[in-house]
């Protein structure tokens, strides 16, 4: 989570948090029927109806609507918080889970989209997750293509929802479902939307339509040095949510068998739900638990609670003062360390270090005190070394572990 947070900040996003306990009317009625059903809500002691956030985008839209006069526009924020959904838990998706959202609000430039893609690549690079594919499509382009096949506007949303399932249920089922809706040329629609091997090829295939948006976006990505292998124009990508109006994204790992690990897109009208002002925005959410699951599957998970580097032991009552001094020096020099609290038998103190996987144990007994030295015991091999006390920090900070 720290890696994700740092990458967000490196790209100039500021952190915000929004309330967990919200008046129900802030949350309900924004996601459609299913969203309402899955929202946790309850009555508080004042008999007011309260809801817990279903995602971070709606609370953020409310925040922008309430504060836009004081915000530097375009506004870039990130938000890492828990959200709640009252549904059956599935792999990488519990009833309570973290979302890591970033959004840029108040700019229509496609540089925003390219920046977000660059950041997605950076996040997964820093997490050491290889083989990610960022699928991109344009909701605008999709609407135009569907219309060219005579699908009228009132139907497009339902058509898009069906096409959205193509990777799950397969091309044939999608075609037959569309045919059931009365779209006789469904096969041709899907054929047109099927991507080519290269992005260039896909754009060429769609040359009859206006693909300037995707073209411009790709050229910005290229200038930002986004590797082409990570980017895939996929005209069937739909993203079920209704509020997308421009480019949409979905990130998958080709090494994993579960759904997307990050997704989002551009929305033009979301803030309008909370104020009379409308701001165009674009954002993506990283699914934290799914990313953790992927890290585990790829055996890349690194525990973040690294042990202290050194344990300062207390030899006897007379060495308490020296031990505290050493401990204080280490902490001030930024060496992660801790002190044993009792002057117990050294073997017991060593055992404690072993249990906590602390690599170095420091001993200052009467012998060392006399010489102004300190004994450094390396727990891994039991090897001991004496050095002058005032070289301790240099020793520990310059210790090179040849993994």
């Amino acid at each position, binding site marked *: 989570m720290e890696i994700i947070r740092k990458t967000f900040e490196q790209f100039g996003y500021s952190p915000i948090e929004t309330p967990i306990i919200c008046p129900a009317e802030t949350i309900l009625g924004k996601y459609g029927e299913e969203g309402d059903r899955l929202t946790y809500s309850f009555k508080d002691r004042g008999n007011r109806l309260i809801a817990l956030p279903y995602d971070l985008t709606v609370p953020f839209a409310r925040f922008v609507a309430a504060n836009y006069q004081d915000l530097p526009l375009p506004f870039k924020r990130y938000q890492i918080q828990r959200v709640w959904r009252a549904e059956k838990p599935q792999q990488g998706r519990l009833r309570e889970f973290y979302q890591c959202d970033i959004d840029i609000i108040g700019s229509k430039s496609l540089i925003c989209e390219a920046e977000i893609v660059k950041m997605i690549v950076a996040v997964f690079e820093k997490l050491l997750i290889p083989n990610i594919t960022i699928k991109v499509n344009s909701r605008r382009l999709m609407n135009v293509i569907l219309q060219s096949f005579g699908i009228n506007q009132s139907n497009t949303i339902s058509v898009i929802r069906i096409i959205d399932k193509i990777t799950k249920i397969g091309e044939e089922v999608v075609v037959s479902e569309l045919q059931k809706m009365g779209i006789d040329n469904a096969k041709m629609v899907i054929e047109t939307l099927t991507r080519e091997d290269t992005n260039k090829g896909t754009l060429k295939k769609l040359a009859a339509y206006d693909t300037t948006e995707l073209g411009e976006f790709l050229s910005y990505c290229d200038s930002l040095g986004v590797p082409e292998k990570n980017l895939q124009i996929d005209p069937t990508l739909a993203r079920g949510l209704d509020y997308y109006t421009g480019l949409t994204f979905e990130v998958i790992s080709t090494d994993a068998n579960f759904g997307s690990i990050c997704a989002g897109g551009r929305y033009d009208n979301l803030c309008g739900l909370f104020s009379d002002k409308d701001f165009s925005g674009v954002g993506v959410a990283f699914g934290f638990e799914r990313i953790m699951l992927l890290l585990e599957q790829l055996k890349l998970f690194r525990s973040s609670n690294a042990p202290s580097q050194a344990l300062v032991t207390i030899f006897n009552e007379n060495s308490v003062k020296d031990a505290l001094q050493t401990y204080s020096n280490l902490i001030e020099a930024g060496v992660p360390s801790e002190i044993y609290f009792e002057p117990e038998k050294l073997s017991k103190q060593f055992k404690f270090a072993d249990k906590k996987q602390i690599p170095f144990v420091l001993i200052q007994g009467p012998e060392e005190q006399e010489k102004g030295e300190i004994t*450094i015991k*390396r727990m891994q*091999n039991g*090897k001991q*070394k004496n*050095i*002058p006390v005032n*070289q301790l920090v*240099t*020793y520990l900070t*310059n*210790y*090179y*572990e*040849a*993994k």
Partner: protein
Amino acid sequence: MKRNNIRIAVQKEGRLKIPSLEYLESLGLQFSKENGRILIVSCKNADAEILYVRHRDIPQYIQSGAADFAVVGGDILYENNFKIRKVKKLNFGECGLVIAIPVVSPIKKIEELNGERIATSYPNSLRKFLKKQKINAVIIEIRGSVEVAPALGLADAICDLTQTGNSLQENALKPIATVFNSTAVFIESPFERGQKSEFANKFLTATL
């Protein structure tokens, strides 16, 4: 900044300075070898300048295109992991980066360096070596006069450049391992030389 001449960087002071200048003379360039405080000296017979700079800075001058060519120690390139095209390996400036211990030290094999303190001005090269040998040790970085660190109680061993081994001997040290051997090399900037390329190419041919 557009230049029409070519610039050749050499070590301002130190073991490579004189042989580098002699090498450039052997290529037919004529210039004053007594530069004093002047750091850029023009050649008398060619559209070229000699740039006198700190040895460790030479790779940066080449990478940024501030200099077109340079004579530099291979040790500097290795230490800083600079990927610069080496035009030619030169037959001077031979030296080795070695790990040495006090002659009185109980250490016999390099494995015994585990947990010991090694003073050096080549931390990256040393780190690469320790990694390869799977040795955990403390790297004490010092800019110069590394040989004196063990006598001062600052280190248990050193990792330093040696040509003849005299300096080691004088400080009661003996080598126990070689990290690498190197010579001076002639290197070229990766940047396009534009207009001046004709002369530069002729010059380049002369070096080969």
